[in-house]
């Protein structure tokens, strides 16, 4: 089965995020008030062939840990979606 996977990579709490801080500082100039705690990360989507969701999550977790994130400064969360018979990777539109 093919599972769609979403890996979100975020800077660890306490690691300075100059991109997030710059975005946050720019918002009042555009008239947006009350926006705080802006943090910039990455979202990485891919497809995994695996016998079941648990196996897909294990594999995706390894990919997230060994390549997609640097544990010194980042953390990653892995979300495995329901198997998609039409999933072929890339940027499919519904």
């Amino acid at each position: 089965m093919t599972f769609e996977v979403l890996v979100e990579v975020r800077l660890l709490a306490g690691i300075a995020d100059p991109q997030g801080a710059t975005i946050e500082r720019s918002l009042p100039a555009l008239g947006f008030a009350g926006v705080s705690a802006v943090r910039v990360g990455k979202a990485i989507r891919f497809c995994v062939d695996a016998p079941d969701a648990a196996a897909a999550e294990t594999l995706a977790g390894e990919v997230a840990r060994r390549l997609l994130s640097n544990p010194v400064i980042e953390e990653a969360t892995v979300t495995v979606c329901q198997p998609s018979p039409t999933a072929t990777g890339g940027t499919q539109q519904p």
Partner: protein
Amino acid sequence: MPAFADSNGRHAAAVTPRIAVIVFPGSNCEHDVAAALGGLGGAAELVWHRERSLAGFDAVVLPGGFAHGDYLRPGAIARFSPVMAAVAAVAAEGAPVLGICNGFQVLTEAGLLPGALQKNRGLTFLCTDAELRVTSDRSVLTAGVAVGRALTIPINHFEGNYTCDASTLAQLRDEDRIVLRYAENPNGSVDDIAGICNEAGNVVGLMPHPERACDPLLGSGDGAVLLASFLATAGARAASADSAA
């Protein structure tokens, strides 16, 4: 006879050390560092990242640039290049290994040095001369260089903001492994760190570019002080390998 000597006039060897300068797709300082090492009496050779053996080399340099486009994170993909297993192997054997700028980022991603390089504090790409202080002489890059010596060497990076957790920083300090500090912190690096070494002192990473400061005509000759120290260690290693053969 090689012409190099470190700043104490130490001529380490009668054997010209062979230095592998690793070339990743996207490296762009390999010719500069090879020319600088050659000018100091080393024999530098460019080695493509798909090479799996570093046999016959006395030392290794990972040059600056944008290995694999810096995609994902600087060094994140380079650490999986085939040559990196050989770099780790010769590092474990005690060979001098130097990572400059992007090379430093690759060494941290590969786990050969602790910590990580983040985006500069001011989110600005920095390309300027930096005033440095030598703060430890227990690395192959600074052996024989007086602690406290001031050096002017250019920096050229967007992700040079060194960070690590508190226990790693304490360990780096306790073990005298912070080899270079900025006189004025340009990028937010913790403890003004510009360069560190591993526990044995043979693996060194720094953000400044010593190869761009090897001739007063380029504005500074201070980088030659560091590269000469590196070559002296590599030369001593070459000489001992020669006499053992």
